[in-house]
């Protein structure tokens, strides 16, 4: 069985202060770029060794809730693709 590939995007929730994003924005402005705002998140590329079609998304959601994102401050988005 070919592994299924997934990408999980974790972002600071809307309205949550992101000091890292602000620092990057200031640096981009120093370089002369006209940047309104920057938010810094995280990308996780995941290979699922053994997941049927149905439960891959559900498994990834559980991963996000139990470890990959902290629901207090982060939102997540799951993109499921084929290997």
């Amino acid at each position, binding site marked *: 069985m070919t592994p299924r590939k997934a990408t999980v995007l974790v972002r600071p929730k809307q309205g*949550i*202060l992101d*000091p*890292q994003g602000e*620092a990057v924005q200031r640096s981009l402005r120093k370089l002369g770029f006209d940047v309104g705002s920057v938010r810094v998140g995280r990308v996780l590329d995941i290979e699922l060794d053994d997941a049927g079609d149905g439960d891959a998304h559900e498994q990834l959601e559980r991963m996000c809730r139990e*470890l*990959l994102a*902290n629901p*207090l*401050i982060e939102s997540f988005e799951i993109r499921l693709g084929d290997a």
Partner: protein
Amino acid sequence: MTTRPLVAVVQFPGSNDDHDAAWALRSVGAEPVLVWHEEATLPPGTGAVVLPGGFSYGDYLRTGAMASLAPAMRAVRAFAAEGGPVLGICNGFQILCEARLLPGVLRSNRELEFVCRDAVIRVENAGTLFTRRCSPGQELVLPIKHGEGAWYVDEGTYVQLAARGQLVFRYAEDVNGSLGNVAGVVDERGNVLGLMPHPEHAVDPLLGSADGGLLLAALVDAAAEHLLAAA
């Protein structure tokens, strides 16, 4: 029977204040025992648990996130559920929040700077297991040293926690962007406390302050009481 209550200090890969915590606990009358994070149980006769400071798992993903899943944390969770006193210091506080044993989360300091200095901490609630040796409003001088110490919860939870006296310590000034300048939080039941400042580095006046001894000695009292209640 030993007169020194046993206090377990859990060591994670990347803990670095474990030995300081053990040393300080011994200086205030405890019998400290170091417990490796892969242990699934606490030593028999454990009266209290300390999660020490450090950088468990190199702060990968989020501070405390990996350590919160360690086998020893299952034992700590069970210990807390039966009323056992648990103290998380710095990284230990971050771990307790990630384990959801305490409300909120510790985020990067507002200015993204690692702060490392003595700070003045006000005791907002002197009625907890951990602050019984302090007086209400007492100001303690304790060292802080962290990059992710800005505690955060949503506004509704904040109001609830404040009303219930769970926001036990506040910095006298803004040191890291922490919501309400909160430096330490206790759980609803009152037996799990986390704080960013380091009481274990402040148990000898020769090193600048002995105020941390007030908190650690109270923990040792609580450990003795817990063992007595269990006996």
